[in-house]
């Protein structure tokens, strides 16, 4: 039997930086248990200090090796780091193989570093929320930097990486048409591009290709995404990358970026409301044994989902008003 301590205790532990509490807190969030909300509510006031960095790139780009070097560079500067490595859950088996931390394993015993692997668990939108909240836990626990890592393919990966404030997109030359392979969504939101394995012959060409692509997508951006070169195996280029990430953070603190933060906060609030309302109404329908009836209406094309939602909401609000 594994008895979990009370949520208050876990929250306290997180704020004190206790590693076991951090781990348990993230599990609570992953499982989306009823206590998860209570936990987030407790720690939310203590968030906002960490710089959340998203790092994504195709398989073979050297992501994990680069993260290992990034962490070391931050540690050299006396910063503490949290890492969330996200991997896909198999839609067939429901299981997941979480192997990203292998290349950062040496850092696992550094008490200033916390590495956690998370699986997408395939519930729509859920992983982005879980990742965001896990990042909040690490933030509240006092980490200066939180790195969210994911593979740059698939729609949910774009959602995951958006939880970050600074998004770094990684390429490696010679992997094939990798620039085309990266989801368009990622290219749009990237703040920094990195060409890894810079010691390769075609590294410079890759840099030029990306720069050319950026010219094409010439939106009026206040922040012009730089294209950097690194050699993750030796660590070359990493200090410069850290510097650029730091520059981006400063940029974010400026006025026009505050507007973006407000937009993000509003989006988060809308999400939270949606989820709460939906789950409360569905739970109620289940309790009253009425869910099947509405599902049948949809399947038999008698009523569309949006109309059903409106009907249910009107009923609910009318009930509230009448009270």
């Amino acid at each position, binding site marked *: 039997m594994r008895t979990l301590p009370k949520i208050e205790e876990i929250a306290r532990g997180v704020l004190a930086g206790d590693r076991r509490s951090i781990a348990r807190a993230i599990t609570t969030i992953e499982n989306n248990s009823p206590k998860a909300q209570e936990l987030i509510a407790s720690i939310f006031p203590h968030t906002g200090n960490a710089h959340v960095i998203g790092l994504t790139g195709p398989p*073979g780009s050297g992501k994990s090796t680069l993260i290992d070097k990034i962490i070391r560079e931050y540690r050299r500067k006396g910063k503490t780091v949290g890492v969330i490595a996200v991997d896909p859950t198999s839609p067939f088996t429901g299981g997941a193989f979480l*192997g990203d931390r*292998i*290349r950062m*394993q040496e850092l696992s015993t550094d008490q200033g570093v916390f590495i956690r692997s998370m699986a997408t668990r395939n519930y729509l939108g859920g992983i982005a929320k879980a990742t965001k909240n896990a990042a909040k836990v690490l933030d509240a626990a006092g980490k200066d930097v939180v790195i969210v890592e994911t593979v740059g393919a698939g729609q949910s990966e774009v959602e995951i990486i958006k939880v970050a404030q600074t998004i770094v997109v990684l390429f490696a030359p*010679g992997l094939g048409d990798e620039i085309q392979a990266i989801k368009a969504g990622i290219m749009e939101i990237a703040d920094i591009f990195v060409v890894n394995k810079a010691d390769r012959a075609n590294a410079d060409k890759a840099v030029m290709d990306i720069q050319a692509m950026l010219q094409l997508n010439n939106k009026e951006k206040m922040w012009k995404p730089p294209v950097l070169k690194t050699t993750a*195996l*030796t660590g070359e280029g990493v200090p410069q990358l850290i510097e650029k990430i730091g520059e981006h953070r400063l940029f974010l603190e400026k006025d026009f970026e505050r507007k973006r933060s407000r937009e993000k906060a509003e989006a988060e609030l809308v999400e939270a409301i949606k989820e709460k309302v939906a789950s409360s109404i569905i739970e109620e329908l289940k309790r009253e044994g009425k869910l099947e009836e509405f599902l049948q209406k949809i399947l038999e094309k008698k009523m569309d989902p949006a109309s059903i939602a409106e009907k249910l909401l009107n009923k609910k609000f009318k009930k509230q008003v009448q009270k």
Partner: protein
Amino acid sequence: MSDKGKINEIAKERERWEKTTLPKWIRQSPERKSEFRNHSGTLIKRVYTPEDIKDLDYMRDLGFPGEYPFTRGVHATMHRGRLWTMRQFSGYGTAEQTNQRFKYLLKEGETGLSIAFDYPSIRGYDSDHPFSKGEVGICGVAVSSLKDMEVLLNGIPLDKVTTSMTINGPAAMLLAMYMAVGNKQGVPRERLGGTTQNDVLKEFFAQKLIIFPPKPSLKLVTDIVEYCTKHVPRWNPISVSGYHIREAGGNAVQELAFTLYDGITYVESCLERGMKVDEFAPRLSFFFAAHNDLFEEIAKFRAARRIWAKTMKERFHAKNPRSMWMRMHVQTAGFTLTAQQPLNNITRVTIQALSAVLAGTQSLHTNSFDEALALPSEEAVRIALRTQQIIAHESGVANTIDPLAGSYYVENLTNEMEKRTMEYFRKLDDMGGAIPAIEKGFFQKEIADSAYEYQKEVDEKRRILVGVNDYTTEEKQPIKVLRVDPKVEEEQVASLHKLKRERDNRKVNEMLEKLHHAAEKDENLMPIIIDAVRAYATIGEICDVLRKIYGEYKELIVI
């Protein structure tokens, strides 16, 4: 009647047989399976006829032993002239204990040495490194310095005995030590014979004893080939290995294709260095596994020889026939040994050894029956050696060369394996070569899938492992297993500390400094490593210098 005519006749007769004679047999007793496939996925026919080798051209595809394409053997007299070297992989505990085991085996009739180093040594750590705790001398012999090597080879005449060393990352260091011991015995490096495995490519996806990243690892391999080509002409600087690919779960075709492609990559690396193909190619050697499927293994070895000969001639334009020889060492497959009813392993090893002999190997190691449980006991290793000797002297199979040639089945299978290997070559060429393929996880995925498939077959009893998933017994056969004395670690560490106190540490540091500079400048590191080793610098110290410059590498995991 023309040949084609004869084949058509046979085809007609076969069809008749299938329509008339065969069906009654199948009705009476249906075949054991609806289809028979070997683990590489080849469909095995009920019966093979001349139809199955109708395109076989004797001179083009087989030739005579000792002549291109060497399918029938690399030497004209093969085992009639000289039996294969009976070379038992050994090592455990201290250098002294292993030295005793070497002498025992030589006395019992083994004809070459093969050194098994312990994990710390293979991984480039000294016996007193934190990582070495609990591992010293357990899986092989602990060698941290030249002093250990001197004890290990004490009383072994290096001008008369050839030695194979299973060592990859630290290969340069161990070779340097071997040369230093030879030197002390008065045997110049030109007369030393043996092999260093020195095959880093397969480490990245099979044996996993990785130290440095791919590029510098390949550079070190090439350094050793370059050095040996000039100064140690009787040494085989690389033993391009498929054994580990097989043990990791690859099937026979994957073993064949990936090993040979690694060989191609080494040749390319040496050519890039500026060496001429005929200078170094004659000393490239190979190492394969021998598994249970007797005929598939024989076909594999024959295909290997032919493919390599063709590759050296057509892809690399070698002129010297010796550059086209594929000389091989074979080890019976460790993975097939069972912990349950261990004496059954003697039978397995016999079948496996037979395949290697029938296929014309140059050198053979037979596993001991207790190796699924521990390192071999003296009795077990003696039986393993006797197995080879019985095959050599009592079975008659070594009295003619390539006896399976002309077999409709074996020739068909040999052709099939060659075809599938060439398909892999094309795929790997398209990927840009072995290193890009490693980075993409190509080999790893192929091997992991094959391993998983094999396990499923065993779990579902589609593949029978006698004593494991069928024909099991409850009572355990008590056998005494070899246990390495825990005091070995203590002794080894104490001896290492004593060495470090008593050697000229100033000289050692000087050597390590020089090594650092040479490595930064990308020079051939063999000469400086030889000097460092002679000053009693340890494996760990030398590897640490290189780790700083090349970085350490973590494998790509594909399950």
